[in-house]
Protein backbone atom coordinates (compact mmCIF):
# COMPACT_ATOMS: atom_id res chain seq x y z
CA UNK A 1 0.00 0.00 0.00
CA UNK A 2 2.80 2.32 0.91
CA UNK A 3 4.38 1.74 -2.48
CA UNK A 4 1.16 2.48 -4.30
CA UNK A 5 0.73 5.77 -2.47
CA UNK A 6 4.13 6.95 -3.58
CA UNK A 7 3.33 5.81 -7.08
CA UNK A 8 0.72 8.56 -7.65
CA UNK A 9 1.60 11.32 -5.31
CA UNK A 10 -1.63 13.15 -4.46
CA UNK A 11 0.18 16.35 -3.60
CA UNK A 12 -0.89 17.93 -6.90
CA UNK A 13 -4.40 18.14 -5.48
CA UNK A 14 -3.14 20.09 -2.53
CA UNK A 15 -0.91 22.43 -4.48
CA UNK A 16 -3.35 24.86 -6.15
CA UNK A 17 -5.11 25.77 -2.90
CA UNK A 18 -1.81 25.96 -1.09
CA UNK A 19 -0.25 28.17 -3.74
CA UNK A 20 -3.20 30.53 -3.75
CA UNK A 21 -3.00 30.92 0.01
CA UNK A 22 0.72 31.41 -0.24
CA UNK A 23 0.47 34.03 -2.95
CA UNK A 24 -2.55 35.99 -1.77
CA UNK A 25 -2.01 35.72 1.98
CA UNK A 26 1.66 35.47 2.68
CA UNK A 27 2.96 37.79 -0.02
CA UNK A 28 0.69 40.66 1.06
CA UNK A 29 1.56 40.06 4.70
CA UNK A 30 5.29 40.31 3.97
CA UNK A 31 4.68 43.32 1.78
CA UNK A 32 2.67 44.83 4.63
CA UNK A 33 5.61 44.51 7.01
CA UNK A 34 7.72 46.31 4.42
CA UNK A 35 5.12 49.08 4.01
CA UNK A 36 5.01 49.55 7.76
CA UNK A 37 8.74 50.35 7.72
CA UNK A 38 8.30 53.18 5.24
CA UNK A 39 7.27 56.78 5.42
CA UNK A 40 4.65 56.57 2.71
CA UNK A 41 1.86 58.97 2.06
CA UNK A 42 -0.14 58.66 -1.14
CA UNK A 43 -1.27 62.26 -0.80
CA UNK A 44 2.19 63.77 -1.29
CA UNK A 45 2.89 61.81 -4.44
CA UNK A 46 6.31 60.96 -3.04
CA UNK A 47 7.66 57.44 -3.32
CA UNK A 48 7.90 55.38 -0.15
CA UNK A 49 11.01 56.02 1.85
CA UNK A 50 12.42 53.62 4.42
CA UNK A 51 12.32 55.02 7.93
CA UNK A 52 12.65 51.67 9.72
CA UNK A 53 10.92 51.71 13.08
CA UNK A 54 9.79 55.34 13.10
CA UNK A 55 6.13 54.48 12.41
CA UNK A 56 6.10 52.21 15.42
CA UNK A 57 7.65 54.92 17.62
CA UNK A 58 5.11 57.44 16.34
CA UNK A 59 2.25 55.10 17.15
CA UNK A 60 3.07 54.91 20.85
CA UNK A 61 2.81 58.68 21.09
CA UNK A 62 -0.34 59.00 18.99
CA UNK A 63 -3.15 59.86 21.40
CA UNK A 64 -5.82 58.99 18.85
CA UNK A 65 -4.53 55.42 18.61
CA UNK A 66 -4.09 55.00 22.35
CA UNK A 67 -7.61 56.31 22.95
CA UNK A 68 -8.99 53.87 20.43
CA UNK A 69 -7.29 51.02 22.31
CA UNK A 70 -8.89 52.10 25.58
CA UNK A 71 -12.23 52.18 23.81
CA UNK A 72 -11.59 48.71 22.41
CA UNK A 73 -10.95 47.41 25.92
CA UNK A 74 -14.28 48.85 27.07
CA UNK A 75 -16.08 47.73 23.96
CA UNK A 76 -14.75 44.18 23.97
CA UNK A 77 -14.83 43.71 27.74
CA UNK A 78 -18.33 44.98 28.39
CA UNK A 79 -19.74 43.88 25.03
CA UNK A 80 -18.54 40.29 25.22
CA UNK A 81 -19.57 39.98 28.89
CA UNK A 82 -23.07 41.11 28.07
CA UNK A 83 -23.22 38.77 25.09
CA UNK A 84 -22.18 35.94 27.38
CA UNK A 85 -24.79 36.71 30.04
CA UNK A 86 -27.55 37.13 27.46
CA UNK A 87 -26.41 34.06 25.57
CA UNK A 88 -26.63 32.05 28.77
CA UNK A 89 -30.13 33.36 29.44
CA UNK A 90 -31.21 32.72 25.83
CA UNK A 91 -29.92 29.17 25.67
CA UNK A 92 -31.29 28.25 29.08
CA UNK A 93 -34.69 29.76 28.38
CA UNK A 94 -34.98 27.93 25.09
CA UNK A 95 -33.65 24.63 26.41
CA UNK A 96 -35.58 24.53 29.67
CA UNK A 97 -38.54 26.72 28.81
CA UNK A 98 -39.79 25.04 25.65
CA UNK A 99 -40.93 21.45 25.99
CA UNK A 100 -41.69 20.51 22.39
CA UNK A 101 -38.53 19.62 20.47
CA UNK A 102 -39.98 20.95 17.21
CA UNK A 103 -40.85 24.30 18.73
CA UNK A 104 -37.40 24.48 20.32
CA UNK A 105 -35.69 23.97 16.99
CA UNK A 106 -37.82 26.68 15.39
CA UNK A 107 -37.20 29.23 18.16
CA UNK A 108 -33.49 28.43 18.10
CA UNK A 109 -33.27 29.00 14.36
CA UNK A 110 -35.26 32.24 14.60
CA UNK A 111 -32.84 33.44 17.25
CA UNK A 112 -29.90 32.69 14.97
CA UNK A 113 -31.17 35.09 12.30
CA UNK A 114 -29.22 38.18 13.48
CA UNK A 115 -25.85 36.57 12.84
CA UNK A 116 -26.79 35.90 9.22
CA UNK A 117 -27.71 39.49 8.52
CA UNK A 118 -24.89 41.44 6.90
CA UNK A 119 -23.35 43.56 9.69
CA UNK A 120 -23.87 46.66 7.54
CA UNK A 121 -27.58 45.87 7.24
CA UNK A 122 -27.85 45.33 10.99
CA UNK A 123 -25.99 48.58 11.56
CA UNK A 124 -28.34 50.41 9.22
CA UNK A 125 -31.40 49.09 11.02
CA UNK A 126 -30.03 50.19 14.40
CA UNK A 127 -28.97 53.52 12.92
CA UNK A 128 -32.61 54.11 11.89
CA UNK A 129 -33.91 53.07 15.28
CA UNK A 130 -31.36 55.21 17.11
CA UNK A 131 -31.89 58.24 14.88
CA UNK A 132 -32.05 61.46 16.89
CA UNK A 133 -35.20 62.81 15.20
CA UNK A 134 -37.07 59.90 13.65
CA UNK A 135 -35.76 57.03 15.77
CA UNK A 136 -38.36 54.61 17.05
CA UNK A 137 -36.48 54.00 20.31
CA UNK A 138 -36.50 57.61 21.41
CA UNK A 139 -40.14 58.01 20.49
CA UNK A 140 -41.15 55.28 22.93
CA UNK A 141 -38.58 56.34 25.51
CA UNK A 142 -40.10 59.79 25.76
CA UNK A 143 -43.64 58.46 25.41
CA UNK A 144 -43.31 56.38 28.57
CA UNK A 145 -41.50 59.14 30.44
CA UNK A 146 -37.92 57.96 30.07
CA UNK A 147 -35.37 60.65 29.25
CA UNK A 148 -34.54 61.46 25.64
CA UNK A 149 -31.21 59.90 24.70
CA UNK A 150 -29.18 61.07 21.73
CA UNK A 151 -27.93 57.57 20.97
CA UNK A 152 -25.53 58.37 18.16
CA UNK A 153 -24.94 62.07 18.70
CA UNK A 154 -23.79 62.05 22.30
CA UNK A 155 -20.03 61.37 22.52
CA UNK A 156 -20.47 59.55 25.83
CA UNK A 157 -23.12 57.17 24.49
CA UNK A 158 -22.33 56.63 20.79
CA UNK A 159 -19.95 53.70 21.30
CA UNK A 160 -22.39 52.02 23.67
CA UNK A 161 -25.16 52.35 21.08
CA UNK A 162 -22.95 50.60 18.55
CA UNK A 163 -22.20 47.99 21.18
CA UNK A 164 -25.92 47.33 21.63
CA UNK A 165 -26.26 46.64 17.90
CA UNK A 166 -23.28 44.30 18.14
CA UNK A 167 -24.83 42.54 21.12
CA UNK A 168 -28.03 42.11 19.17
CA UNK A 169 -26.16 40.58 16.27
CA UNK A 170 -23.75 38.27 18.11
CA UNK A 171 -25.54 37.09 21.24
CA UNK A 172 -27.02 34.34 19.03
CA UNK A 173 -23.51 33.06 18.43
CA UNK A 174 -22.94 32.72 22.17
CA UNK A 175 -26.34 31.13 22.50
CA UNK A 176 -25.56 28.61 19.78
CA UNK A 177 -22.34 27.40 21.37
CA UNK A 178 -23.81 27.34 24.88
CA UNK A 179 -26.87 25.51 23.62
CA UNK A 180 -24.70 22.89 21.97
CA UNK A 181 -22.75 22.66 25.21
CA UNK A 182 -25.97 22.18 27.12
CA UNK A 183 -26.94 19.32 24.82
CA UNK A 184 -23.70 17.57 25.71
CA UNK A 185 -24.45 17.44 29.45
CA UNK A 186 -25.63 13.91 30.28
CA UNK A 187 -29.27 13.82 31.35
CA UNK A 188 -28.39 11.45 34.21
CA UNK A 189 -26.85 14.37 36.11
CA UNK A 190 -30.17 16.17 36.08
CA UNK A 191 -32.15 13.07 36.98
CA UNK A 192 -30.00 12.58 40.04
CA UNK A 193 -30.56 16.19 41.05
CA UNK A 194 -34.29 15.80 40.56
CA UNK A 195 -34.35 12.75 42.83
CA UNK A 196 -32.60 14.79 45.48
CA UNK A 197 -35.27 17.46 45.04
CA UNK A 198 -32.82 20.20 44.16
CA UNK A 199 -34.31 23.56 43.15
CA UNK A 200 -33.92 24.84 39.59
CA UNK A 201 -31.52 27.65 40.41
CA UNK A 202 -29.31 25.36 42.42
CA UNK A 203 -29.25 22.85 39.59
CA UNK A 204 -28.24 25.62 37.22
CA UNK A 205 -25.41 26.79 39.46
CA UNK A 206 -24.10 23.39 40.48
CA UNK A 207 -24.57 21.35 37.31
CA UNK A 208 -25.22 23.46 34.24
CA UNK A 209 -22.68 26.22 34.75
CA UNK A 210 -19.66 24.03 35.64
CA UNK A 211 -20.35 21.67 32.74
CA UNK A 212 -20.50 24.59 30.34
CA UNK A 213 -17.13 26.04 31.34
CA UNK A 214 -15.25 24.74 28.31
CA UNK A 215 -17.90 26.03 25.92
CA UNK A 216 -18.04 29.43 27.61
CA UNK A 217 -14.27 29.81 27.24
CA UNK A 218 -14.41 28.92 23.56
CA UNK A 219 -17.28 31.27 22.79
CA UNK A 220 -15.64 34.14 24.65
CA UNK A 221 -12.34 33.60 22.84
CA UNK A 222 -13.98 33.57 19.40
CA UNK A 223 -15.98 36.70 20.20
CA UNK A 224 -12.92 38.52 21.53
CA UNK A 225 -11.03 37.70 18.33
CA UNK A 226 -13.92 39.12 16.34
CA UNK A 227 -14.24 42.28 18.36
CA UNK A 228 -10.82 43.62 17.46
CA UNK A 229 -11.62 43.11 13.79
CA UNK A 230 -14.91 44.90 14.24
CA UNK A 231 -15.68 47.70 11.80
CA UNK A 232 -18.80 47.26 9.59
CA UNK A 233 -21.52 48.26 12.05
CA UNK A 234 -19.38 51.04 13.48
CA UNK A 235 -18.69 52.39 9.99
CA UNK A 236 -22.33 52.77 9.09
CA UNK A 237 -23.67 53.82 12.52
CA UNK A 238 -21.26 56.54 13.65
CA UNK A 239 -18.15 56.36 11.47
CA UNK A 240 -16.24 56.84 14.71
CA UNK A 241 -18.09 60.02 15.59
CA UNK A 242 -19.10 62.36 16.98
CA UNK A 243 -15.52 63.53 16.59
CA UNK A 244 -13.53 60.41 17.33
CA UNK A 245 -15.56 59.46 20.38
CA UNK A 246 -16.57 56.01 19.13
CA UNK A 247 -13.51 55.21 17.01
CA UNK A 248 -12.07 51.72 17.47
CA UNK A 249 -8.58 50.72 16.22
CA UNK A 250 -9.69 49.01 12.99
CA UNK A 251 -11.70 52.04 11.93
CA UNK A 252 -8.80 54.33 12.80
CA UNK A 253 -6.52 52.22 10.60
CA UNK A 254 -9.05 52.48 7.79
CA UNK A 255 -9.19 56.26 8.19
CA UNK A 256 -5.39 56.50 8.33
CA UNK A 257 -4.91 54.40 5.21
CA UNK A 258 -7.80 55.35 2.97
CA UNK A 259 -8.88 58.81 4.11
CA UNK A 260 -5.56 60.32 5.24
CA UNK A 261 -3.70 58.09 2.75
CA UNK A 262 -0.78 57.39 5.08
CA UNK A 263 -0.18 53.79 4.16
CA UNK A 264 3.06 53.35 6.13
CA UNK A 265 1.61 54.39 9.45
CA UNK A 266 -1.63 52.51 8.82
CA UNK A 267 0.28 49.30 8.11
CA UNK A 268 2.29 49.72 11.30
CA UNK A 269 -0.93 50.24 13.27
CA UNK A 270 -2.47 47.15 11.74
CA UNK A 271 0.48 45.03 12.89
CA UNK A 272 0.29 46.54 16.35
CA UNK A 273 -3.31 45.43 16.87
CA UNK A 274 -2.54 42.02 15.41
CA UNK A 275 0.29 41.51 17.88
CA UNK A 276 -1.84 42.77 20.76
CA UNK A 277 -4.55 40.32 19.78
CA UNK A 278 -2.09 37.41 19.61
CA UNK A 279 -0.68 38.31 23.03
CA UNK A 280 -4.14 38.71 24.53
CA UNK A 281 -5.27 35.43 23.00
CA UNK A 282 -2.29 33.58 24.43
CA UNK A 283 -2.77 35.03 27.91
CA UNK A 284 -6.39 33.99 27.75
CA UNK A 285 -5.49 30.44 26.70
CA UNK A 286 -2.84 30.16 29.44
CA UNK A 287 -5.36 31.28 32.06
CA UNK A 288 -7.77 28.76 30.64
CA UNK A 289 -5.27 25.92 30.96
CA UNK A 290 -4.44 26.84 34.55
CA UNK A 291 -8.01 26.86 35.83
Amino acid at each position, binding site marked *: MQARRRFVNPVWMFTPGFLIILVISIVPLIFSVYISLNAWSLAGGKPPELNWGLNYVWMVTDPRFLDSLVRLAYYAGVGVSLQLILGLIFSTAIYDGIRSARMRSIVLTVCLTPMLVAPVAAGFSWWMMDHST*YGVINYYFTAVGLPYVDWLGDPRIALTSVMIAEIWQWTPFMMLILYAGRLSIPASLYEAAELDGARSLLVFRRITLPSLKKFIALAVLLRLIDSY*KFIDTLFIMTHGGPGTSSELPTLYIYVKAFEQLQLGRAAALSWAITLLAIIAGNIFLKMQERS
Partner: protein
Amino acid sequence: MIQKSDLVVRLVFIVVAAVIVLWTLFPIYWLAVTGVKTQTDVLTSPPVWFPKPDWHFYRDVLSESGISQGVGYIALRDSLIISMGTTLLCVILGAMAAYVCSVFPANVPTGGKSMAFTILTFRMFPPIVPTIPIFWLFFLLGLLDTHLSLIIAFTTFNLPFAIYMMKTFFDDIPRPIVDAGLVDGYSPFKLFWKIVLPLAVPGLVSVTALCFVFAWNEFLMSLILTSTAVRPYTVLLATWMTAMEIAWAHRAALAVVGIIPPIILVWILRDRLVRGMTLGAVR
Protein backbone atom coordinates in the same frame (compact mmCIF):
# COMPACT_ATOMS: atom_id res chain seq x y z
CA MET B 1 -45.27 15.98 41.59
CA ILE B 2 -44.59 19.40 40.01
CA GLN B 3 -43.65 21.88 42.68
CA LYS B 4 -45.20 25.31 42.63
CA SER B 5 -41.82 27.04 42.40
CA ASP B 6 -40.98 24.97 39.34
CA LEU B 7 -44.17 26.11 37.68
CA VAL B 8 -43.22 29.74 38.33
CA VAL B 9 -39.75 29.10 36.92
CA ARG B 10 -41.24 27.56 33.81
CA LEU B 11 -43.54 30.51 33.33
CA VAL B 12 -40.60 32.88 33.66
CA PHE B 13 -38.72 30.87 31.05
CA ILE B 14 -41.57 31.08 28.58
CA VAL B 15 -41.94 34.82 29.04
CA VAL B 16 -38.19 35.25 28.63
CA ALA B 17 -38.24 33.15 25.45
CA ALA B 18 -41.01 35.33 24.04
CA VAL B 19 -39.08 38.52 24.85
CA ILE B 20 -35.99 37.03 23.19
CA VAL B 21 -37.86 36.29 19.98
CA LEU B 22 -39.28 39.83 19.91
CA TRP B 23 -35.89 41.42 20.58
CA THR B 24 -34.36 39.27 17.84
CA LEU B 25 -36.92 39.99 15.19
CA PHE B 26 -37.71 43.65 15.79
CA PRO B 27 -34.71 45.22 13.97
CA ILE B 28 -35.35 42.96 10.99
CA TYR B 29 -39.05 43.79 11.03
CA TRP B 30 -38.17 47.48 11.17
CA LEU B 31 -35.97 47.18 8.09
CA ALA B 32 -38.64 45.32 6.17
CA VAL B 33 -41.40 47.70 7.13
CA THR B 34 -39.34 50.81 6.36
CA GLY B 35 -38.89 49.51 2.83
CA VAL B 36 -42.65 49.50 2.18
CA LYS B 37 -43.27 52.95 3.63
CA THR B 38 -43.85 56.03 1.53
CA GLN B 39 -41.28 58.79 1.89
CA THR B 40 -43.53 60.68 4.30
CA ASP B 41 -44.25 57.61 6.42
CA VAL B 42 -40.53 57.01 6.87
CA LEU B 43 -39.82 60.39 8.39
CA THR B 44 -42.74 60.87 10.69
CA SER B 45 -43.49 60.79 14.36
CA PRO B 46 -45.10 58.78 15.92
CA PRO B 47 -43.46 55.93 14.00
CA VAL B 48 -45.71 53.99 11.64
CA TRP B 49 -45.83 50.32 12.57
CA PHE B 50 -48.15 48.94 9.93
CA PRO B 51 -48.03 51.17 6.85
CA LYS B 52 -50.21 50.63 3.84
CA PRO B 53 -47.59 48.77 1.82
CA ASP B 54 -46.03 50.71 -1.00
CA TRP B 55 -43.75 48.37 -2.90
CA HIS B 56 -42.12 50.86 -5.20
CA PHE B 57 -38.82 50.98 -3.29
CA TYR B 58 -38.49 47.21 -3.48
CA ARG B 59 -39.39 47.32 -7.15
CA ASP B 60 -36.87 50.07 -7.70
CA VAL B 61 -34.13 48.11 -5.96
CA LEU B 62 -34.88 44.99 -7.99
CA SER B 63 -35.35 46.48 -11.44
CA GLU B 64 -32.75 47.25 -14.06
CA SER B 65 -34.18 50.69 -14.68
CA GLY B 66 -36.25 52.92 -12.48
CA ILE B 67 -35.82 56.16 -10.58
CA SER B 68 -32.49 55.04 -9.17
CA GLN B 69 -31.35 53.74 -12.59
CA GLY B 70 -30.93 50.20 -11.36
CA VAL B 71 -28.03 50.82 -8.96
CA GLY B 72 -29.59 48.44 -6.45
CA TYR B 73 -30.08 45.76 -9.08
CA ILE B 74 -26.51 46.17 -10.34
CA ALA B 75 -25.11 46.03 -6.81
CA LEU B 76 -26.98 42.82 -6.04
CA ARG B 77 -25.79 41.34 -9.33
CA ASP B 78 -22.19 42.29 -8.50
CA SER B 79 -22.53 40.69 -5.08
CA LEU B 80 -23.90 37.53 -6.67
CA ILE B 81 -21.08 37.26 -9.23
CA ILE B 82 -18.42 37.83 -6.58
CA SER B 83 -19.94 35.46 -4.03
CA MET B 84 -20.46 32.67 -6.52
CA GLY B 85 -16.96 33.04 -7.90
CA THR B 86 -15.45 32.97 -4.43
CA THR B 87 -17.54 30.01 -3.36
CA LEU B 88 -16.69 27.97 -6.44
CA LEU B 89 -12.97 28.61 -6.08
CA CYS B 90 -12.95 27.91 -2.35
CA VAL B 91 -15.02 24.75 -2.47
CA ILE B 92 -13.17 23.10 -5.36
CA LEU B 93 -9.65 23.95 -4.25
CA GLY B 94 -10.56 23.63 -0.58
CA ALA B 95 -12.04 20.15 -0.91
CA MET B 96 -9.01 18.85 -2.81
CA ALA B 97 -6.50 20.36 -0.40
CA ALA B 98 -8.47 19.19 2.64
CA TYR B 99 -8.69 15.69 1.20
CA VAL B 100 -4.93 15.43 0.89
CA CYS B 101 -4.48 16.84 4.43
CA SER B 102 -6.96 14.34 5.80
CA VAL B 103 -6.16 11.14 3.89
CA PHE B 104 -2.49 11.56 2.94
CA PRO B 105 -1.06 13.73 5.71
CA ALA B 106 2.42 12.36 5.03
CA ASN B 107 2.39 13.92 1.58
CA VAL B 108 1.71 17.42 2.85
CA PRO B 109 4.51 19.68 4.05
CA THR B 110 4.65 19.71 7.88
CA GLY B 111 1.98 17.02 8.06
CA GLY B 112 -1.72 17.42 7.34
CA LYS B 113 -2.91 18.17 10.82
CA SER B 114 -0.73 21.12 11.70
CA MET B 115 -0.97 22.30 8.09
CA ALA B 116 -4.72 22.71 8.32
CA PHE B 117 -4.31 24.57 11.59
CA THR B 118 -1.59 26.84 10.25
CA ILE B 119 -3.81 27.63 7.31
CA LEU B 120 -6.62 28.49 9.67
CA THR B 121 -4.55 31.03 11.57
CA PHE B 122 -4.66 33.22 8.46
CA ARG B 123 -8.30 33.70 9.21
CA MET B 124 -7.42 35.20 12.54
CA PHE B 125 -5.71 38.21 10.99
CA PRO B 126 -7.84 41.31 11.04
CA PRO B 127 -8.84 41.77 7.39
CA ILE B 128 -7.41 45.28 7.43
CA VAL B 129 -3.85 43.88 7.68
CA PRO B 130 -3.72 42.17 4.26
CA THR B 131 -6.12 44.68 2.73
CA ILE B 132 -3.63 47.57 2.82
CA PRO B 133 -0.96 45.75 0.77
CA ILE B 134 -3.56 44.05 -1.43
CA PHE B 135 -4.97 47.47 -2.28
CA TRP B 136 -1.56 48.61 -3.45
CA LEU B 137 -0.73 45.39 -5.29
CA PHE B 138 -4.07 45.43 -7.09
CA PHE B 139 -3.53 49.07 -7.95
CA LEU B 140 -0.20 48.17 -9.58
CA LEU B 141 -1.81 45.25 -11.42
CA GLY B 142 -4.77 47.36 -12.53
CA LEU B 143 -7.18 45.03 -10.77
CA LEU B 144 -8.94 47.56 -8.57
CA ASP B 145 -12.67 47.95 -9.10
CA THR B 146 -13.15 44.59 -10.82
CA HIS B 147 -15.10 41.49 -9.81
CA LEU B 148 -11.89 39.50 -9.96
CA SER B 149 -10.20 41.66 -7.32
CA LEU B 150 -12.86 40.83 -4.75
CA ILE B 151 -13.00 37.17 -5.70
CA ILE B 152 -9.26 36.91 -5.09
CA ALA B 153 -9.38 38.92 -1.89
CA PHE B 154 -12.30 36.95 -0.42
CA THR B 155 -10.59 33.71 -1.31
CA THR B 156 -7.73 34.75 0.96
CA PHE B 157 -10.08 34.48 3.87
CA ASN B 158 -12.51 31.79 2.82
CA LEU B 159 -10.14 29.21 1.38
CA PRO B 160 -8.37 28.54 4.71
CA PHE B 161 -11.76 28.21 6.34
CA ALA B 162 -12.97 25.84 3.62
CA ILE B 163 -9.86 23.66 3.90
CA TYR B 164 -10.11 23.48 7.67
CA MET B 165 -13.82 22.69 7.70
CA MET B 166 -13.68 20.16 4.87
CA LYS B 167 -10.88 18.39 6.67
CA THR B 168 -13.01 17.90 9.78
CA PHE B 169 -15.71 16.36 7.61
CA PHE B 170 -13.27 14.08 5.75
CA ASP B 171 -11.76 13.04 9.09
CA ASP B 172 -15.20 11.75 10.12
CA ILE B 173 -15.29 9.21 7.29
CA PRO B 174 -14.45 5.78 8.73
CA ARG B 175 -10.88 4.94 7.80
CA PRO B 176 -11.63 1.34 6.66
CA ILE B 177 -13.78 2.67 3.82
CA VAL B 178 -10.92 4.83 2.57
CA ASP B 179 -8.41 2.01 2.98
CA ALA B 180 -10.66 -0.36 1.06
CA GLY B 181 -10.50 2.00 -1.89
CA LEU B 182 -6.71 2.09 -1.67
CA VAL B 183 -6.50 -1.69 -1.55
CA ASP B 184 -8.65 -1.84 -4.68
CA GLY B 185 -5.97 0.21 -6.40
CA TYR B 186 -7.90 3.49 -6.76
CA SER B 187 -5.74 6.44 -7.67
CA PRO B 188 -5.88 9.28 -5.14
CA PHE B 189 -8.12 11.32 -7.38
CA LYS B 190 -10.47 8.44 -8.12
CA LEU B 191 -10.67 7.70 -4.40
CA PHE B 192 -11.55 11.34 -3.77
CA TRP B 193 -14.11 11.54 -6.53
CA LYS B 194 -15.79 8.15 -6.12
CA ILE B 195 -15.64 7.50 -2.38
CA VAL B 196 -14.59 10.40 -0.14
CA LEU B 197 -16.50 13.25 -1.76
CA PRO B 198 -19.90 11.49 -1.99
CA LEU B 199 -19.63 10.54 1.68
CA ALA B 200 -18.90 14.14 2.65
CA VAL B 201 -21.73 15.77 0.69
CA PRO B 202 -23.56 17.13 3.75
CA GLY B 203 -20.36 18.78 4.94
CA LEU B 204 -19.59 20.02 1.47
CA VAL B 205 -23.02 21.61 1.22
CA SER B 206 -22.71 23.48 4.50
CA VAL B 207 -19.20 24.71 3.72
CA THR B 208 -20.50 25.94 0.37
CA ALA B 209 -23.36 27.78 2.04
CA LEU B 210 -21.11 29.41 4.63
CA CYS B 211 -18.51 30.49 2.06
CA PHE B 212 -21.30 32.08 0.08
CA VAL B 213 -22.72 33.88 3.10
CA PHE B 214 -19.30 35.18 4.20
CA ALA B 215 -18.61 36.58 0.74
CA TRP B 216 -22.13 37.94 0.36
CA ASN B 217 -22.01 39.83 3.67
CA GLU B 218 -18.42 41.12 3.42
CA PHE B 219 -18.00 44.86 3.64
CA LEU B 220 -14.55 46.22 4.48
CA MET B 221 -12.57 44.78 1.55
CA SER B 222 -15.42 45.53 -0.82
CA LEU B 223 -15.37 49.14 0.28
CA ILE B 224 -11.63 49.50 -0.23
CA LEU B 225 -11.10 47.51 -3.41
CA THR B 226 -14.03 48.82 -5.45
CA SER B 227 -15.34 52.23 -6.36
CA THR B 228 -17.63 52.86 -9.33
CA ALA B 229 -17.48 50.04 -11.89
CA VAL B 230 -18.20 47.33 -9.32
CA ARG B 231 -20.12 47.94 -6.13
CA PRO B 232 -21.35 45.04 -3.98
CA TYR B 233 -24.63 45.61 -2.23
CA THR B 234 -23.08 46.02 1.22
CA VAL B 235 -21.09 49.00 -0.02
CA LEU B 236 -24.13 50.54 -1.66
CA LEU B 237 -26.04 49.98 1.56
CA ALA B 238 -23.52 52.04 3.50
CA THR B 239 -23.18 54.83 0.96
CA TRP B 240 -26.49 55.20 -0.90
CA MET B 241 -27.60 58.81 -1.04
CA THR B 242 -30.39 60.44 -3.02
CA ALA B 243 -30.45 64.19 -3.53
CA MET B 244 -28.03 64.87 -0.67
CA GLU B 245 -30.06 62.74 1.67
CA ILE B 246 -29.54 59.30 3.11
CA ALA B 247 -31.91 57.10 1.15
CA TRP B 248 -33.76 55.51 4.09
CA ALA B 249 -36.36 53.50 2.28
CA HIS B 250 -34.08 52.55 -0.61
CA ARG B 251 -31.46 51.31 1.80
CA ALA B 252 -34.02 49.45 3.89
CA ALA B 253 -35.44 47.69 0.83
CA LEU B 254 -31.94 46.82 -0.38
CA ALA B 255 -30.98 45.51 3.07
CA VAL B 256 -34.03 43.26 3.18
CA VAL B 257 -33.37 41.85 -0.29
CA GLY B 258 -29.74 41.37 0.74
CA ILE B 259 -30.46 39.44 3.92
CA ILE B 260 -32.90 37.05 2.29
CA PRO B 261 -30.36 34.70 0.59
CA PRO B 262 -28.38 33.93 3.77
CA ILE B 263 -31.55 33.43 5.77
CA ILE B 264 -33.03 31.04 3.20
CA LEU B 265 -29.78 29.06 2.99
CA VAL B 266 -29.54 28.72 6.72
CA TRP B 267 -33.18 27.78 7.22
CA ILE B 268 -32.78 24.96 4.73
CA LEU B 269 -29.49 23.76 6.15
CA ARG B 270 -29.94 24.67 9.78
CA ASP B 271 -29.12 21.29 11.28
CA ARG B 272 -25.88 20.99 9.36
CA LEU B 273 -24.53 24.47 9.79
CA VAL B 274 -23.82 24.58 13.48
CA ARG B 275 -20.41 23.04 13.11
CA GLY B 276 -19.36 25.46 10.42
CA MET B 277 -20.51 28.54 12.25
CA THR B 278 -18.55 27.54 15.33
CA LEU B 279 -15.42 26.67 13.32
CA GLY B 280 -15.77 22.99 14.09
CA ALA B 281 -15.85 23.52 17.82
CA VAL B 282 -19.33 22.09 18.10
CA ARG B 283 -20.15 18.89 16.27
